[in-house]
């Protein structure tokens, strides 16, 4: 096989690492974001949620990844504690940093959607005596979901691309493998172009999934077909 063929194969073999990091971070960040939004509804926990968002949104993801991997993971209690098997894995460190960072962005997306629910929709639920949890499940959550989806999808696309930063702490994701190949071949442009094509493929697949969900939530459709 020629150079580009073997390189493409090598890059595709790294796709599962990138996809795993993306899916795990997306799940983790979304859950943390939901908790952050819930915290912002109560006065006691509001400050903590705001501080979290301020810090993780206001500092570079790359620095956060470095701090987890080179910083926290090197601390004595972590090194000799029961968490060490997790923290010695660069993939885990990248996941942790991405979960924290992206949760801040997603929380803001969800908060915006929550505020955009028309008051009348909530009042109709209150007026018929719906309790808090029924209201959340039946009215608020579905409406937040459809209001947030375009911006949330945007975040997810950004997250796929941000996974490439994990290569800086030795994770062999698509970008990591590309750098490895370049290190012995010195063929920079064509390898990076191949890697870029792989990312395009992944974001295209994600966009297609998001569009499907958007359509299923909005059967009459302002969503593009």
């Amino acid at each position, binding site marked *: 096989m020629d150079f580009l063929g073997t390189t493409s194969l090598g890059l595709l073999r790294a796709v599962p690492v990138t996809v795993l990091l993306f899916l795990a971070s997306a799940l983790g960040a979304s859950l943390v974001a939901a908790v952050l939004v819930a915290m912002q509804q109560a006065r006691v926990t509001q400050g903590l949620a705001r501080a979290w968002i301020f810090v993780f949104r206001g500092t570079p993801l790359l620095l956060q990844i470095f701090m987890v991997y080179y910083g926290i993971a090197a601390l004595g209690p972590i090194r000799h504690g029961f968490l060490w098997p997790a923290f010695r894995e660069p993939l885990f460190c990248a996941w942790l940093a991405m979960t924290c960072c992206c949760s801040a962005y997603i929380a803001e997306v969800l908060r915006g959607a929550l505020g955009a629910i*028309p008051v*009348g*929709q909530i*009042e*109709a*639920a*209150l*007026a*018929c*005596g*719906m*309790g*808090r949890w*029924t209201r959340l499940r*039946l*009215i608020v959550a*579905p*409406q937040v979901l*459809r209001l947030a989806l375009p911006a949330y999808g945007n975040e997810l696309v950004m997250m796929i691309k941000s996974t490439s930063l994990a290569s800086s702490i030795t994770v062999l994701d698509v970008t990591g493998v590309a750098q490895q190949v370049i290190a012995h071949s010195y063929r920079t442009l064509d390898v990076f172009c191949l890697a870029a094509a792989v990312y395009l493929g992944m974001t295209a697949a994600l966009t297609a999934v998001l569009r499907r969900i958007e359509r299923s*939530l909005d*059967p*009459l459709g302002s969503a593009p077909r």
Partner: protein
Amino acid sequence: MTQTSPSVLSARGITKSFGGRAVLRGIDLDAQRGDVVTILGGSGSGKSTFLRCLNLLELPDAGTIEIAGTRAPLAHDRHGKARIANPKALNALRTKTAMVFQNFNLWSHMTVLDNVIAAPVHVHGVPRAQAVDRAHGLLEKVGMAGFAGHWPRQLSGGQQQRVAIARALATDPDLMLFDEPTSALDPERVREVLDLMRALAGEGRTMLIVTHEMAFARDVSSHVVHVRDGVIESMGPPALMFGPDASPVFRAFLSP
């Protein structure tokens, strides 16, 4: 005692201010089973606020409310600010009522059918199949049979409001609150909603209606209430209120 009493609503001394401006300055109102009470008044008179105080969408600053034997759980904190004493009791009170809004407020992510069965199934615990049966009957009653699978967005304003009325009827409420139900409708759509409300009144539903439809108030209500500057300026049966002995202030309101 509350079982035998035909009193459906008893509101006493309801006051409410927004940011220091008094909107309600002490309103007493009673309704017996089967009463159709229309509340008239200029904009800013406080009539909608009063209606929204009854199911505590607005929290009154003071006063007591009792609906079908259930007392509104109003309390005051140590600064005298009104608060809900007990969220469970609040929902219990609200389940005795149903509200029809000016802007319909159908849940936009649910079909017509899901809108109508939501409260029976998820608040009252009625089995789904039974609620669906009843919903189809109600949709037929409001002239919306065949629209069960439609989305609110596909309907005209008048159709949405009729679905909203079916939704309100679905829990068989003791008291129906109508907050300017025809004010957001085209003139030709007003009629279909008023005709429906007239039919409900004929069935003996207890209704409290904030409206600007004078002819409806005159023809359908058992009592007409004129609210002005946050107090009841005058009230009485329509024959009196629209007759020669009505209060001069109300007469001026009718024909300025």
